[in-house]
């Protein structure tokens, strides 16, 4: 199997809706694991997902998932499951019928379809409600049954558009655990979300989108490291913050040092975090007792704020 058979590849993909830009010049390769698409409303997250699954066709460029072009649904959806944001269902079906009927459309026989549907229903903890009409489900249950439908045929790539919307905190954490389990089984999970701390918690890498362009992609800490125009902010808890401040301020890569309000810590902004950590070793030798060192803005929220200019969503 070649390496491209394990990747999702966007090759110079653009999508325009008439005059309106959906996404532009997207070049990205996505490896197995959890990848989150992050960006404000209208950034192009759903467009990217719909392009990936052939619901939209690129105006320019090409997309392959595990080596399969997106205009071959008969091959593509043996390997791909997509839980869209469309909160609609065929009329009059129960949760179980909903899943089973589309497994039959996939081509599974009745017994296989029943078994796979049961498994999927169990995975999303919806066993008790499975034989009730979907029309009577809560928003969270509808979200879960759509998730079950997208994983029922056991795809290798799972694409989830805002999958945590409408879920209560307990189900939310169960669902994140399920995503982690699926990713550890070797699946590709592509997730879009507004809720940055959850994305931060569960993603191996992120793709940040704004106005149809990818503004950053990769491991979140790697992305943060590359943002040289925004010095990294670090909080050092220690017994002599004033002494430490005087010590570090002499370094040209340190752009700001500010005492913590409780005067038991020091905020430092540095353009070179690695050199700064080495510097701390010397501070210890000079007699400063350091209790903890933690980056303050080495997370997705900070990256999002620096790159996109807003604070993004929160839970």
């Amino acid at each position, binding site marked *: 199997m070649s390496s491209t058979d394990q990747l999702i590849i966007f090759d110079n993909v653009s999508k325009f809706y008439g005059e309106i830009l959906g996404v532009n010049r997207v070049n990205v390769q996505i490896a197995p694991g959890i990848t989150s698409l992050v960006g404000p409303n209208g950034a192009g997250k759903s467009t990217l997902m*719909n392009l990936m699954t052939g*619901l*939209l066709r690129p105006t320019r460029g090409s997309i392959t998932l595990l080596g399969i072009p997106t205009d071959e*649904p008969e091959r593509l*959806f043996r390997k791909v*499951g997509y839980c869209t944001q469309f909160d609609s*269902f*065929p009329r009059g079906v129960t949760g179980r019928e909903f899943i089973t009927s*589309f497994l039959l*459309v996939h081509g599974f026989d009745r017994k296989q379809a029943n078994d796979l549907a049961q498994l999927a229903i169990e995975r999303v903890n919806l066993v008790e409600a499975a034989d009730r009409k979907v029309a009577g489900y809560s928003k969270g249950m509808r979200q879960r049954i759509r998730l079950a439908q997208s994983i029922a045929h056991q795809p290798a790539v799972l694409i989830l558009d805002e999958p945590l919307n409408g879920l209560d905190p307990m189900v939310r954490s169960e669902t994140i655990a399920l995503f982690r389990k699926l990713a550890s089984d070797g699946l590709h999970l592509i997730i879009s979300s507004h809720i940055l701390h959850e994305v931060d918690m569960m993603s191996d890498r992120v793709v940040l989108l704004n106005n149809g362009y990818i503004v950053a992609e990769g491991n979140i800490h790697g992305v943060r490291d590359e943002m040289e125009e925004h010095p990294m902010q670090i909080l050092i808890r220690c017994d002599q913050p004033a002494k430490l401040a005087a010590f570090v301020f002499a370094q040209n890569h340190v752009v700001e040092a500010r005492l913590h309000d409780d005067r038991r810590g020091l905020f430092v902004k540095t353009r070179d975090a690695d050199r700064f950590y080495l510097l701390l070793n010397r501070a210890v030798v000079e007699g400063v007792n350091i209790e903890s060192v933690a980056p303050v803005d080495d997370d997705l929220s900070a990256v999002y704020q620096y790159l996109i200019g807003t604070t993004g969503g929160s839970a």
Partner: protein
Amino acid sequence: MSSAVEIAQATPEQNRARWGLWLRQVGAIFRLEIEKNFLSRRSILIYLIALSPVIPLLLFAPFTPPGKEWQDFNNYSVVYATIYNVLFLRTLIFFGSAWIFMNLFRGEMVDRSLHYYFLSAVRREVLVVSKYISGLVTSIILFTTTTVVAMLLLYFPHVYSQSVRYFTEGRGLAQLLTYAGVTMLACVGYGAFFLVVGLFVRNPIIPAILLYGWEWLNFLLPPLLKKVSVIHYLNSLVPVPLSEGPFAVVGDPTPAYIAIPSMLVVTIIVLILAAYRIRHMEIRYGSD
């Protein structure tokens, strides 16, 4: 490598497996669609359309109208031919097919549920064929039943003994079967047209009305243009031809051995067009 090339290079076993898969998928989609066609809220209108000629005929059954023409058995075939042409072919089957076949895709776009099919491992061509077959079976069951029941209701309550002889010994049964066949062919032709209209046009009512006008004005068209319509071929096949009035441009009916294959060939071409369209279709419910 495209799947078409793969199919060309596939072994006979692989081809058999593929056809087996496609047939299973057609069956699965057909079952879902048939249920929707017969049991959804949208089907209420179809039942009303299909029952609309039966109910007045049922009410009319106990009473034979006064007048010599109702005593003459030979007139019944002309009365039915008129009802069939004006009410069935030009109105009920036309609008019934429009409703059934346009909703096969357009209805799912309105309901925002078409993407579930598009996200299944099924060729979109298989989806078109399956949906078309489901629409066809639905319309044929409803309108053929109506055609047969209406004919029997017209004859038997009023001239019972002659009707028994007519349908058992005379031309009655052959005429009944011919009308049923023409109904089926109308469902085939109009169905394909409306299926493709539902795929191409956001508001299918306008092309439906345009076609309706075209079909009605068929009697005024020159012979060559008459052939660019469904009604011309259907009228060529009905067992009791009707006069089209003093202003009609007379044209020769098309023989059955040309009319039937022509309708089927055009239907296949239209379905290929529908398959091409669905193959390139995007899901953008907001703009639909």
